[in-house]
């Protein structure tokens, strides 16, 4: 995909035998890899494989216990972000390091301020930013406040921030996790363009497609160790996945044709206005039958969040009704829904899925703690029952945790999601709502959760899956509804769906046009 020629000597960065220990864990175990000048080098691994730790060591945020770094073939000491910046390393963190109430300019110059006398020289800073932004073709408004910018643009500011500090080694930590598919494509174009201008890029990810799409070379990490190197041109998604997980994984879950029976969830002319009184759900109707999976595809922010919040009892609706097994549900009564057979895997697992400081046992009984056997006589909780339940479910749902007593916050994203799945799938279900069920998870966990969802379907549960990832919708759903600007554009059979067609509808094309 690129016509670069690289020789052995042409290294931007070399990491030699780096080991980083945290109390009780070895996050990086004798890790070595090389970054050639002007290449995009992907660092692939599951969550917790040690990719981000390694990059934080390179950036000077952590000190390594063993090992050394070479920049331009010379050994360098990196004792803090300042050193890293001086050696031309720039990092775009997974969670943006931007001050929301500052302007783009203020964020860009922070730490490397330009002054005139004692005052900040914002005018000159602005000029320099515009120059860089033009040179790299990354458009920004220097006066815009970060909090008013869409995520994609914030990321652009982060990249510019590194370039402003004259970075020629750019580390991107899971850059696409927060982006829409379109924004991700734009980012890849930017990355390719940057390499042409002499920047070398380390691209941390666990998404195989992205690597095949954009990387020149891949280093695969598993449990803190480098387990292999590869060239995307010489491998495929299956090969990379196997290397990353350490066993064969199914990228697409096998499933039999659905056998839908009676309607279990029916949404009738639902209309919802948000906090700003904007109608975000406009007269939506659909039904889900027992034994089928209905997928709702759509770019985020098209009303899916509000729609699901109304169905799952987290918010009211302005008009319309929702039937659960034929009965009209009351809005804003989540406990009613739990007791009548609705399971909900929420969109934001930290905000709505778990009480992070609570231990796993408590998190697993969050919706049933007041029932027998967990609540004993006189409303006193039966710790034994809670613990027994947790131990069983942790085993059954393969949650990797040292004990049921650890806080949910200490688990990786994939295991946190499994805890939620354990809770929601283990009470009697008629309807299951899974909103972005695998967001931010690695292939191993995705495979597991997809399998569980299909199992639920085969057991006769009606499933509603909402996802911004087309792949997820295509591999799970039996029927697909496309949502755009608060309306359902159309509902089609998944067998007749193509990615291109779905993409067009998600972007607002109307079905009559095609």
């Amino acid at each position: 995909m690129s016509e670069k020629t690289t020789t052995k000597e042409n290294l931007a960065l070399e990491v030699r035998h780096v080991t980083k220990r945290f109390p009780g864990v070895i996050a990086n175990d004798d890790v070595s890899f090389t970054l050639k000048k002007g290449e995009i080098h992907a660092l692939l691994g599951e969550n917790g494989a040690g990719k981000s730790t390694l990059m934080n060591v390179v950036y000077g945020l952590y000190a390594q216990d063993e090992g050394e770094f070479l920049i331009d073939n010379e050994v360098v000491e990196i004792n803090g972000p300042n050193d890293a910046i001086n050696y031309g390393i720039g990092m775009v963190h997974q969670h943006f390091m931007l001050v929301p109430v500052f302007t783009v300019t203020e964020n860009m110059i922070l730490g490397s301020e330009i002054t005139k006398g004692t005052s900040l020289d914002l005018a000159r800073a602005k000029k320099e930013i515009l120059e860089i932004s033009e040179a790299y073709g990354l458009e920004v408004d220097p006066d815009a406040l970060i909090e008013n910018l869409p995520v994609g643009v914030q990321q652009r500011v982060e990249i510019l921030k590194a370039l402003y500090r004259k970075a020629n080694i750019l580390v991107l930590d899971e850059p696409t996790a927060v982006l829409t598919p379109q924004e991700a494509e734009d980012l890849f174009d930017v990355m390719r363009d940057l390499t042409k201008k002499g920047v070398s890029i380390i691209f941390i990810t666990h998404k195989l497609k992205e690597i095949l799409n954009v990387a020149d070379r891949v280093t695969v990490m598993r449990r803190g160790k480098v387990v292999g190197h590869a060239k995307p041109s010489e491998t495929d998604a299956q090969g990379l996945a196997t290397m990353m997980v350490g066993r064969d994984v199914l990228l697409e879950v096998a499933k039999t044709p659905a056998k839908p029976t009676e309607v279990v969830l029916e949404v009738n002319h639902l209309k919802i206005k948000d906090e700003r009184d904007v109608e975000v759900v406009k007269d939506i109707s659909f039904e889900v039958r027992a034994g089928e999976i209905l997928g709702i595809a759509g770019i985020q922010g098209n009303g899916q969040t509000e729609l699901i919040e109304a169905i799952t009892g987290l918010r009211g609706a302005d008009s319309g009704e929702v039937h659960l097994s034929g009965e009209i549900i009351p809005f804003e009564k989540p406990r009613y829904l739990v007791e009548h057979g609705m399971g909900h895997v929420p969109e934001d697992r930290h905000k709505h899925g778990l009480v992070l400081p609570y231990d796993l046992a408590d998190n697993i009984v969050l919706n049933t703690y007041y029932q027998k056997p967990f609540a004993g006589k006189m409303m006193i909780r039966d710790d034994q029952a809670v613990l027994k339940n947790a131990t069983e479910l942790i085993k059954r749902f393969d949650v990797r945790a040292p004990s049921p007593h650890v806080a949910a916050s200490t688990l990786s994203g994939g295991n946190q999601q499994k805890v939620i799945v354990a809770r929601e799938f283990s009470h009697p279900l008629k309807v299951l709502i899974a909103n972005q069920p695998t967001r931010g998870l690695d292939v191993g966990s995705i495979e597991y959760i997809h399998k569980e969802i299909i199992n639920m379907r085969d057991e006769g549960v009606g499933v509603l899956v909402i996802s911004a990832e087309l792949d997820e919708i295509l591999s799970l759903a039996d029927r697909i509804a496309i949502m755009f600007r608060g309306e359902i554009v159309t509902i089609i059979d998944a067998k007749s769906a193509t990615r291109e067609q779905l993409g067009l509808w998600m972007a607002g094309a109307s079905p009559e046009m095609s």
Partner: protein
Amino acid sequence: MENTNTLPTTTPQQLFLKQWGTTIFVSLTVIAIVIWQYILNANVTEAVLASTIRQSTPLVLGALCGLLGERSAVINIGIEGQMLLGAFVGFLVNVWTGNLWIAVFAAIFTGAVMGLLLAYMSVTLKMDQIIGGTVINILALGLTGYFYQVGLTTKGKMLPIPLGPLADIPIIGPALFNNPPITYATFVLVFLVHYVLFHTKWGLRTRAVGEHPRAADTLGVNVFKVRYVNVIVGGAIAGLAGAFLTLEAVGSFERAMTNGRGFVALAVMIFGKFTPLGAWGAALLFGFANAMQTQLQFADIQVPHQFIGMLPYILTIIVLSGFVGRTHIPAADGVPYEKE
């Protein structure tokens, strides 16, 4: 947040009104009252204005102390104690040395040491900052109460220095240009802190550390140092406020003489939206209301004096609830920084 494309747009005029509407409205009202009063009775009006400045000075200084801390994310509820201890040490040093200037610097130094203590507790030990501040308040009350001896008086006090013809300007002249040194210093400090906070490298880093310390850290800003320096400088300013009380306003020390000013200063700081100029305006308004109520008590009005005494507080409540609107508190305020 989710739907960025449907955010209601505000015109520059609306934004200006939103930001400055309250200030303009309140200022105009106050100016109208002052002019009307001046026509009725010039002497009383000038006295009220002078009293306004006097009452507001320790509040402004306290608020500057508070906002330096909070802009870098350290909540300082120990302003009261820092002020009190500064007042006491300044007073003692004056009694011993007979020199006012040495006494003022002793007060400033004491405040700075108390700032250092707060910074150590909240930045290094990562203690709960409310408890840290309370420690300082109790410590100050205990120390000053224990060491205070009745009967000591200062040797002289800071006297007003009229600034030539400026002091003869009607209405504002006597209030603004005929003041003792610490009051003048306060005027300068308000603008100085404003300049530092919003126009210098240090200020940018301070605000960044108060909003998103990790972002600042990843860019090589020393979060701990920024917090230490701001809290210590804030303490010094609170010490100066203490010096104002003993060496400029009263001329002696009494037990617990700060009388809650450190806490009112916190209210003034929030009221002023964590900005020096805003805090100054808020302190002046509060001082004005206070001066007015003192004056009204002498006037021949058929209202129980308790009601007149309530005026400043009622005014504060009305302005706070009705006009100021939402204040942006530094996002990391009160949260100790962990380097992982």
